[in-house]
């Protein structure tokens, strides 16, 4: 059954500042939506509003047909997982402990992870090919491995939707490709995926649809093939863009500058 995460006529921002308004955005299970826009366009603010971490200043966010603010944080976390930008943690938790934290919404206030929780975390580690890291401190693994750990934690939540904030930022070329493949595989396993990116090529590679945001307003939305073209990107970033196409492989890419 298809489930939807939608924002209707959203105004987004912080207490003292309106970042964007009149935004309609939606993603459903089984598809990948990429959110593109220049620095300061409101991508992250929109992401946090859709996640329920930030209250909308107008309009509303609906998850599975119900207004998001009526969900408890626990119920919300069982439907929607957040993958923040990979970061340096304060404490050297093991990779397995970090992934087990994804199970917290499945227990009660005082509960410890059960054997079933450990099994789910183990499967999640396996799926992203990092089971061998389970006992390593999260602080001692590479940036790419940290991103995969956070993906594994998100999957351990057993959510319907996975929302990622610049999942490819600060990763090397090979790991960027790996994370994009994992995003595709999440959609293939029925998850709805929403991610922000600074690279239109990543959207071309991993997303079904793209949503272009500039100065807090939507300038285009649709299938990546239709929306991501040279004119649109030049308008989005207010910068020259070139498009190159490999006719034999049938893929194209954009070059900035």
């Amino acid at each position, binding site marked *: 059954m298809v489930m939807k995460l939608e924002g209707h006529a959203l105004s987004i921002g912080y207490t003292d500042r309106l970042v964007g308004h009149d935004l309609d955005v939606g993603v459903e299970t089984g598809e990948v939506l990429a959110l593109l826009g220049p620095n300061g366009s409101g991508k992250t603010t929109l992401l946090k509003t859709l996640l329920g*971490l930030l209250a909308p200043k107008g309009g509303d966010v609906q998850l599975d047909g119900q207004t998001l603010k009526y969900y408890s944080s626990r119920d919300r976390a069982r439907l929607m997982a957040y993958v*923040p930008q990979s970061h340096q943690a*304060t*404490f*050297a938790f093991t990779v397995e402990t970090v992934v087990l934290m994804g199970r*917290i919404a499945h227990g009660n206030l005082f509960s410890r992870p059960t054997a079933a929780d450990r099994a789910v975390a183990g499967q999640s580690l396996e799926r992203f090919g990092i089971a061998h890291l389970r006992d390593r401190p999260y*602080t001692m693994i590479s940036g790419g491995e940290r991103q995969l750990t956070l993906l594994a934690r998100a999957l351990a939540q057993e959510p319907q939707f996975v929302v990622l904030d610049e999942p490819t930022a600060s990763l090397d070329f090979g790991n960027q490709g790996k994370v994009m493949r994992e995003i595709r595989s999440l959609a293939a396993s029925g998850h709805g995926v929403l991610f922000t990116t600074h690279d239109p090529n990543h959207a071309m590679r991993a997303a079904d649809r793209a949503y272009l945001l500039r100065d807090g307003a939507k300038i285009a939305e649709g299938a990546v093939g239709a929306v991501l073209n040279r004119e649109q990107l030049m308008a989005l970033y207010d910068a020259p863009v070139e498009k190159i196409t490999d006719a034999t492989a049938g893929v194209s890419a954009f070059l900035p500058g």
Partner: protein
Amino acid sequence: MSRSAAPGFAVALAALIIGVLIAFTVGRYPIALSDLFSVFLGKLSGRPPDLPPIVENVIWQVRGPRVVAAALVGAALAVAGTAFQGLFRNPLVSPDILGASSGAALGAVLGIFFSLGVFAIQSLAFAGGLLAVAAVYLIGSAVRSRDPVLVLVLTGVVIGALLGAGVGLVKYLADPYNQLPAMTFWLLGSLAATTLSDLLPLFGPVAAGTLVLIALRWRMNVMSLPDEEARALGVPTGPLRVVIVAAATLVTSASVATAGIIGWVGLVVPHMARSLVGPDFARLIPAAALLGGGFLLVIDTVARNSAAIEIPLGILTAVVGTPFFIWLLTSVSRTWS
């Protein structure tokens, strides 16, 4: 960190047991280990041991309350420090970060200034600690910010400084021959005056606060993540933060009310515990409690025995804690494992 924390726990437990044994046996009136065991066994079996009554008197009346108090205060400060370090995502935080110690200090010096009784002074100190943190929390929550934790810490620093000024004023106004030495002594921390009747008001809050923190140990891990990340994982961070701060403040205020200001324990012991059992709070909090008890027992024994007069605990913990802290700073780029 190894998968098994059992060896680490064994070390922490051994530290507590060794601390208890040292604290009971070493002193002006040395007690042989064998005598200590026969007194313990005699109490358990109900048969009085064949020893001079002074031995039993020293063990049960003189050292007993002090040993229990030292273990409880050490455990309390270590547990509160562990909780605050996690909550504020900063391994250099100690239990007085939100002003509990400064508030308790002001309460105590006011009690001494008005020549109140011991119990009243302790109650004022306890209430002062709780009130200070409550004020910090209310002011911090009133400030709308994207980083509620940072606002809380800064408010704690500011209010702590104000309360420190209050302590200074009361000391300045105090009678320099009777009151001022008492205030100074209290502010430096001591367990010398501990009696049996001190133990219940200490034990109650410390046990209650510690149990809450132990019950929440798995949630504490998530609370040490950035606020939005923890919320996205389904943890209601706002209410949980109130509960953790309240529990840690309860144990801190109770121990400061009994023993005065003893710094460093809450800063140093969590690191020792972390190196033994790793950063997972489920193991860390119990290990810190054991280790903190053992640590303060050893410190207190040194305080009793190393000089003609008792050395204030706060001074000894600073002497031990400062080199440790400097070592910590020099290795700050390493992980907090």
